[in-house]
């Protein structure tokens, strides 16, 4: 079911958290709300599930205006960051609770619980209590409870934050699989860009209560609208060089570095600019050579990561296939790939 936030605002007392946000999530789509801590992701999510009353605007599920409907009447499934399982109930009772509240007969509840616990692979745990489950198992129970009554919308608030790295990887694809299999509209709140990029059809990136950009992961990575977005996506993160416009090229004052810019970038001579260079665009293979000294080296197994301090002081990051001939302190001359660079105005706008 489509979800539409129409000019949605939310403030707590005098603190305005969200102002006039408009966001549409298509039917069967999985959308990530991505942003740094405190930007209002959970607030938005809680407004969608009816725990927070919006202070302005409307919320629509399909064509139905649910703005004034209480949570109980919205038919949504929510997975909380802490899972919020009911500690005194068994797994089966936890999952069956939404159905029991609806007044479904016990026999049918059992059937539904069996069906859904098969889907999330916890059929053998039904008799246990939450305290007797591992983090990953609790996570699956929470997911099953959210899905059991066939909600119109599934909301996930940082569902993977409490899991260890390996489990996180596993649950990432699990959640995506289940979302695809059930065809449910889902909204995932996260501050982990990898999670957002790998799990979702589209990403809405938020900053201080506003959506900065909303696009597919690939689009957003290649074509970020602001320096904030560019900095948020990508691991290892992008590095920025500060400089000015000089003769149609980007130049760093007091240094030799010149990066020719496409003519489409209309900036007058001397304008301050920021040049975003992703680590994969600063390698021995680029076309604009720059020299510097390696200040940090780290191997990630398949690739090596280097920080290179340029002559003028600024830092560039490089990611390359593993090599053993470069160490911390070495002077290197590598090159920026001029086709891969992103140009931003001084205020962070993409040019």
């Amino acid at each position, binding site marked *: 079911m489509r979800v539409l936030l129409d000019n949605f605002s939310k403030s707590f007392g005098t603190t305005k958290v969200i102002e006039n946000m408009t966001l549409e999530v298509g039917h069967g789509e999985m959308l990530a709300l991505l942003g740094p801590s405190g930007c209002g992701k959970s607030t938005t999510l*809680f407004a969608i*599930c009816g725990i927070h009353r919006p202070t302005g605007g409307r919320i629509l599920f399909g064509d139905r205006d649910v703005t004034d409907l209480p949570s109980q009447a919205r038919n949504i499934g*929510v997975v909380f960051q802490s899972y919020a399982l009911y500690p005194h109930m068994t797994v089966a009772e936890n999952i069956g*609770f939404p159905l029991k*509240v609806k007044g479904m007969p016990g026999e049918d509840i059992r059937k539904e619980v069996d069906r859904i616990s098969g889907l999330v692979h916890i059929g053998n745990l039904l008799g246990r209590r939450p305290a007797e489950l591992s983090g990953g198992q609790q996570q699956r129970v929470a997911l099953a409870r959210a899905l059991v009554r066939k909600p119109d919308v599934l909301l996930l608030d940082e569902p993977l934050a409490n899991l260890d790295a390996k489990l996180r990887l596993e649950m990432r694809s699990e959640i995506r699989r289940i979302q695809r299999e059930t065809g449910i509209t889902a909204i995932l709140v996260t501050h982990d860009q990898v999670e957002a990029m790998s799990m979702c059809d589209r990403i809405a990136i938020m900053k201080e209560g506003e959506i900065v950009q909303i696009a597919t992961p690939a689009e957003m990575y290649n074509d970020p609208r602001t320096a904030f977005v560019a900095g948020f996506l990508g691991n290892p993160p992008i590095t920025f060089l500060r400089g000015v416009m000089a003769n149609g090229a980007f130049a760093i004052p007091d240094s030799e570095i010149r990066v020719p810019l496409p003519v489409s970038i209309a900036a007058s001579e001397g304008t301050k600019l920021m040049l975003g260079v992703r680590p994969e665009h600063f390698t021995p293979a680029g076309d604009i050579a720059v020299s510097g000294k390696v200040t940090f080296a780290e191997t990630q197994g398949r690739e090596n990561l280097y920080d290179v301090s340029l002559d003028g002081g600024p830092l560039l990051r490089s990611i390359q296939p593993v090599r053993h001939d470069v160490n911390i302190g070495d002077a290197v001359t590598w090159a920026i790939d001029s086709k891969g660079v992103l140009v931003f105005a001084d205020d962070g706008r993409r040019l």
Partner: protein
Amino acid sequence: MAEKSQVSANYSTWPVILALSIVSAPLVLMYAYLFLDTITDTAVGSLIPDSFTLRHWRFLWETLPGKPNIWLVTLNTLIFTTSVTAVIVLVSSMAGYVLSRLNVPARGFFLAGVMVLHAFPSVTLIIAIFIVLQMIGLYNSLIGVILVKAAIDLPLGIWLMKGFYDTVPWEIEMAGVVDGASRFRVWRSLVLPQVRPGIMALGLFSFLSGWSEFILPQVLAPGGKVQVLSVYLSSLIADDNNFDFGTFKAVGVFYIVPVLIVYALFHKYLMNIYGGGSKG
């Protein structure tokens, strides 16, 4: 626990046990004599009992002159105590939830007010309460004294329950609401089970407090039909005509036996008051 076993691993425990035994010996001795005296006769000036008798326990099967029947008194005490406990547990478990969770107007004022009431010595109110009860016709009735006792103990109960509710995570309630349960249902079947240790502790605490309450029933319900055990007991020593120390002691033993039983069965719940919070 861990600390305790560590101590026993590194030190020998018998000196500690010995020291504690010596210190508590007089107490044990006093209790032993209390019981012994109820079933024996002792010559004046002697410490050694010289004959066995059930004379002091005769209050159990015959009504003492000028006193109400012991079983009626016991029944009254039971009614008084359980009613007080029920009222306190019921009201505290609801009021504590409201103060912990709902956005009631003047919440801070309520909390502070409840605290002040708790700190207020109830004896200072007793004359006023006496007059009020007499005016509304509840003087010398169990209902009246039950209401007063419950009201006086409620502040503590409400604060205690609020503390327990504060430890229950918000998310559980949000999950319940999203799952379609009404606010009442959420409280009843999701939150209440989390604070069960608190309810048990409060119930026990109220029971013990109600059982030992003396001054309120003494002043507000002294009549024979509504007398409770503590008042009965005190009337025994107050009565100069048939002064009988043995009977007084026997009634005393009779009076504390239920407390001992309750305490032995449930003392671990009482610890929760000081431990605070549920383990979920």
